[in-house]
């Protein structure tokens, strides 16, 4: 059944020889790793070094003469830029809200689907579908057929509740983008939590039932602690993807109205594509990376913990 794999990181080297590995043996072990390692270093690390270099350069695509040294001026303008701060803030709001709400809904849906009922497989399939829709397609379909003020389905469905032709993308832009993020990522959270629920040992639940524990108490005292590593894993992985959300912002609101939905990815995209400011984008990128490293250090620690977690039951 579904269990978080505790062995992958905890297990000592599976087939390792007790005797000291010879030089030849060491290389024989290292060799298969090298192509992937070199590839990843080149493709992901070199652009970062180049970014670091450009962050000290004054370089605009549309200005002839190429790059020249600019010292810290790019950093100065990023730090004093209200646009950058607001983009950073929007990124935080979007990611945190979407991840938390998607997780709460994910847990609720997983609890629903953990019960036996007619057509459970079909319902499960229906709920995971939003995650499989191409994000660009989801964004455009929400922006048009779903949320349009004049013919959108949502306004029609909300009519009985006194909603009349609301232009969601102008009046509730940030909320609309977050709703689509939640819609796409709830299934992901649900799948992970559901896997956890189904790995929950039945005998413990049975014992709680015999002891006369109510459903709520059972959830709080038994199920939730058991699910914790799954929830942490879902939040962690969800954040990695959601912090980079771009498609929905670009295609639903184009960062607007004004800069109401401009998050960091969209801000950087605009710097390069509309302002042609490679140096400024690079400085903003370096700062983004530094912030990410701070967050990722915690995330990696959590990762190590989650992957080493031994089920509460054992």
């Amino acid at each position, binding site marked *: 059944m579904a269990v978080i794999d505790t062995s992958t990181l905890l297990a000592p080297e599976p087939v*390792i020889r007790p005797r000291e590995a010879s030089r030849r043996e060491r290389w024989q072990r290292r060799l298969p790793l090298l192509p992937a390692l070199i590839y990843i270093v080149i493709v992901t690390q070199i652009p970062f070094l180049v970014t670091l270099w450009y962050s000290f350069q004054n370089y605009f695509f549309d200005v002839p003469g190429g790059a020249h040294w600019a010292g810290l001026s790019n950093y100065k303008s990023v730090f004093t830029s209200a646009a950058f701060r607001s983009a950073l803030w929007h990124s935080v709001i979007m990611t945190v809200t979407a991840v938390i709400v998607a997780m709460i809904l994910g847990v609720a849906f997983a609890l629903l689907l953990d019960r036996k*009922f007619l057509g459970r497989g079909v319902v499960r399939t229906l709920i995971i579908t939003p995650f499989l829709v191409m994000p660009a397609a989801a964004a455009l379909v929400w922006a048009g057929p779903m949320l349009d003020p004049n013919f959108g389905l949502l306004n029609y469905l909300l009519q009985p509740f006194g909603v009349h032709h609301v232009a969601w993308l102008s009046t509730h832009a940030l909320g609309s983008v977050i709703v689509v993020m939640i819609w796409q990522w709830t299934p992901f959270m649900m799948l992970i939590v559901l896997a956890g629920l189904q790995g929950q040992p039945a005998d413990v639940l049975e014992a709680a039932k015999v002891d006369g524990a*109510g459903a709520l108490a059972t959830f709080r005292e038994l199920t939730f602690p058991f699910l914790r590593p799954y929830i942490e894993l879902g939040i962690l992985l969800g954040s990695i993807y959601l912090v980079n959300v771009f498609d929905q912002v670009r295609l639903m609101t184009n960062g607007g109205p004004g800069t109401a939905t401009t998050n960091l990815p969209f801000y950087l995209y605009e710097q390069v594509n509309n302002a042609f400011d490679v140096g400024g984008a690079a400085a903003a990128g370096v700062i983004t990376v530094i912030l990410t490293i701070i967050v990722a250090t915690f995330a990696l620690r959590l990762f190590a913990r989650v992957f080493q977690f031994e089920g509460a039951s054992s």
Partner: protein
Amino acid sequence: MSALPLRSREPGPQRFRDMSVKVGWGIVAWVVGIAFFLPVLWMVLTAFKPESAAETWPPRFTFSPTLAQFRLVFSGWGPYVTHSLIATVGSTILVLLLGVPAAYALSVHPVKHWRDGLFFFISTKMLPIVAVIGPLYVIALKTHLLDSIWLLIILYTAMNLPLAIWLIRSFMLEVPSELLEASELDGAGRIREMTEVILPVISPGLVSTALICVIFAWNELFLALNLTVTNAATMPMFLISSVPQEGLYIAHLSAAATVASVPVILVGWIAQRSLVRGLSMGAIK
């Protein structure tokens, strides 16, 4: 959740109540499922509408279905779908070619610092690619890779490789050690061990790894939008191109969105089980 106290010794009415609670929650689940699926259903429904029936108030649920929008989509998607297929399949093959040996070196006969290696790979997944997009553009320009399908293959491979290594490794750890020892006793070298013992055992795992890579590569927009124009424009960009500056387009857009999404939806429906394992990078079996 129902907070019903359990009085299991009352037979008749209690059983009836249990039953109705069960049915009640089943209905709730169905309502939730349909509500969540509704936007997808609406997308598919709108795709079969004539343009004039797609932008009406109130929205129309009955109409005479037409394939006109799909015909329009299929007449224009040629280059886009070709680029998407090449970038997706190409990067997935490259991921497997690089990922299988790397996963082997981190599991079966692990290198000394295999834990550091694993975390290095996953840490690259946490660094936001958006942060380097400007310089990436300049690098692509100078290496003449801008607007080329090779660039997307290279970048999508780097994007999916860390995930694939973690995932493939989790499958390799499941290869029974007796099999590995037996092949070693037979005097099989590392390469024969790989081709004759490991690969046959993990091949279903490789399929689900490939599926996850296909999903992410097929859906990718940010890099494609920034680094390609026409020679390598992919399906997500085809969607954008189906939104014109003026005129009615909602039905056409819905058809394009349906066509672009259907492959991944079908793959995901069929491979629901491996989806969980893949998305959790092998943490959940």
